[in-house]
């Protein structure tokens, strides 16, 4: 039986086996490839999405767990790359290879939602769930601070 949920505000469903990680449903069935596969073990954060408004590792979430829930992916964060974090990410020239950045931005969006004016230490603690192998961390901190200021 199909599992039903919403993605970026639109109704979606999947016939995948219930234990299939949400990540692969989003990427290969729904073709929303901004959410990335990095480790498959919840260690790198490349697959980060929001489920009912909170960040979640989509590689660690079985599709059966999201029945009736609302999922937001990077593609749904804003219509026109206009989220304060997206603007700040460009202003600070954060991405290098860019592969992890969808997950970074989704993590940061979750932080600012809970805590609109985080301290540097709070940013570091929250964002240490995500790995960036290009080492853009310093610019990520600056971008989150900028977004918090300008939002």
């Amino acid at each position: 039986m199909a599992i039903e949920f919403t993605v970026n505000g639109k109704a979606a469903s999947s016939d995948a086996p219930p234990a299939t990680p949400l990540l692969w449903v989003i990427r290969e069935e729904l073709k929303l490839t901004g959410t990335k596969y990095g480790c498959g073990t919840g260690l790198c954060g490349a697959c980060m999405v929001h489920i009912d408004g909170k960040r979640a590792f989509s590689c660690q979430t079985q599709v059966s767990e999201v029945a009736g829930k609302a999922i937001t992916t990077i593609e749904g964060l804003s219509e026109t790359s206009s989220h304060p974090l997206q603007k700040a990410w460009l202003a600070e020239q954060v991405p290098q290879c860019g592969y992890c950045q969808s997950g970074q931005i989704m993590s940061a969006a979750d932080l600012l939602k809970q805590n609109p004016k985080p301290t540097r230490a709070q940013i570091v603690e929250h964002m240490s769930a995500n790995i960036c192998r290009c080492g853009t961390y310093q610019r990520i901190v600056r971008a989150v601070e900028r977004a918090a200021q300008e939002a």
Partner: protein
Amino acid sequence: MTQQTQHLSARTLKRHGAAISRRDVMIGAVGLSFAITLGQGRAAAAVLAAERSGKALSPWVSISADGTITIMSPATEMGQGSMTSLPLIIAEELDADWSKVAVVPAPPIDAIYGNPGFGGMMYTAGSNAVTSYFVPLRTFGAQVRRVLIENAAKKLGVPAGELTTEPSVVVHAKSGRRLGYGEIAAFAEIPEKAPEIKPEQLKKRADFRLIGHDVIRVELPSKINGSAKYSIDQQVPGMIYGAVVRAPVEGSAPDKIGDAKTKAVPGVIGVVKLPYGVGVLAETAWAAFAGRQALDITWTREGQAWGFDSDKGMERFAAAARDPKSAATAWGKAGDVKAEMPKAASVMEAEYRCDYAYHAQMEPLNATASVTGDAAEIWCGTQSQTMAVEAVGKALGIPREKVKLHDTLLGGGFGRRGHRDEEFIIDAVLLAKEAKRPVKMMWTREDDVHNGRHRPISAHYIKAGLDGSGKLLAWHHRVAGDRVTPYMDPVRYEERGKKDFILMLGTDIKGYDVPHQLIEQIYEDSGVRTSPLRGIGFTANKFATESFMDEIARKHEVDPVKFRLALMGSSPRAKRVVERAAEMADWGRKRDGRALGFAYIDYSGSQVAGIAEVSLDRSSGDIKVHDFWCAIDCGIAVQPDNVAAQTESSIVYGLGMALTERITIRDGAVEQSNFYDYRVPRMSDVPLMHIEVIQTDNHPTGAGQMATPLVAPAISSAVAALTGARLRHTPFTPERVLKALA
């Protein structure tokens, strides 16, 4: 199958592929001439140009009537920014309005787009794209500008000498008339021969409008909204999914394949025996992975690395490095070390070691392929378009021209995607051939670690001779390290006279005046898969040489910065970065509970100096790096902020190599699996980084990895300053730190 490679800004997407109209001007003759200046055979270039003449595309630049300027990017983009910097160099001399420029990836035609720094291959590595393409691309841009001016002169009936350009406009100041590049393109005639541009006719640095001025990297807007397309994001009509288990040891093959459980996984289509492993084909990605997990394979004990343990190997390498009787080949030589070392007033010696390390690019390796009859189509992220089409042609026994490449953005490269055999692409190709359908083949993270090709282990023995005044006279460095170049690229190894440059580069002590030097390699071959990894040999070799410089200075009670400056009489650029880094860090100031450590490198001409501020938990052995200062002079910085970004990036990479990243080999196989047992730096590990890009008029040199090798020696020396104990083995794990302190 006509899916476009999606690469860059919205503008680029519109311009890419067949979208360029027939009205676009063709500047083929100019491009042809440029191809010849790159040192390729005239005949080959002519043939390629003829093949391309039927298409409405020119080799490097095309300008459409609406003023859009399309520029080819010969380098692949893995975050280092070449896809912006190289077209920007053409745009500078062309005097193009950058906002009208669209960048598209160049096709794999070596004769036109090959990297002069790599014998004309299309290969993005060694932080050398800007260095090697700088003059050719400027010349080419200037040629196109000249053609536009000459056409405008004819149209306006004025001498070409009276015309100047502003961004994308030819201007006749006397009459106030102006012609946009797009307008000229509509009527332009292209000369048979490209106009000659002499070096002195290129712009002066002061006249640059783009070089040295930061622009937003062309692909960046696609990297903040999920629209950037990497290899793993490709969707090809009719495609299925593939996973592969490769043998734990190179040269080994599957002996018995237990695939009953695999075949029982819903969605699994089939199991494919490969010469080096076993593949699974499935309807979905998850079924392919589940089927892969369920395989039960035993391997033949063919292959050299069986039985090799890295810890024992390291002991053996270290013994070979220190034993003067070990067979060694000279890598570098100056003066006469053998004669002068015995005359030294005092002698010091030391040993250092570095472990295997893993690239850990964020995108696990993958490729999509389609094989039909005698042709193939591949979608992949590669550091070498040339190697990709050649490797696939070789695997299928077809000419490389029959391989259609869609090269995508890379989710990190770091040297991993530039091996001659491009084995991860071959996985996809062999599965697609078997499936007779397009296959997206993906490695899991665990595959990516287990199939890793690693930075080699190396053991270093260094001996230095000093005169009575404490001045460094003689330097002898012996490296026993696992071979890299003959494994990763046998073709270049032969071309470069069987020199293992990936292992040995950075053993030199450029920048320092030491009259007698001898650098030797003790060749070791464990059979373990090895690779160039960001910083290549520099990371291990500079850990040894710069830590040893510090030891010598401390032993003679000389300030380590002053000790180095005294040896830099012939290297003013070196002196400048060293002095600047010391100023930035306030080097002379003592810190409470913390200490500073210094390192300097001449990395292929780029001058870098770095200082780490470090504290240490003596009970746990944990090192904390609080701040890192770095001054870099890479000559003309085409994109200064990007040089700073690459420097930050390479410091973080160096931090991992220095503190936590360690691959161990047991019985020939990699022991680690994922980010829980291979720890890369996270945000909480990273120091505050203070970067200064020193702009000079020198020819641009690299920026993509130059600071990586600074980090380990700077930390080792900071810990020595703090505790008196010397860390000699990277990574500096807490156990090793505690052992050094004991």
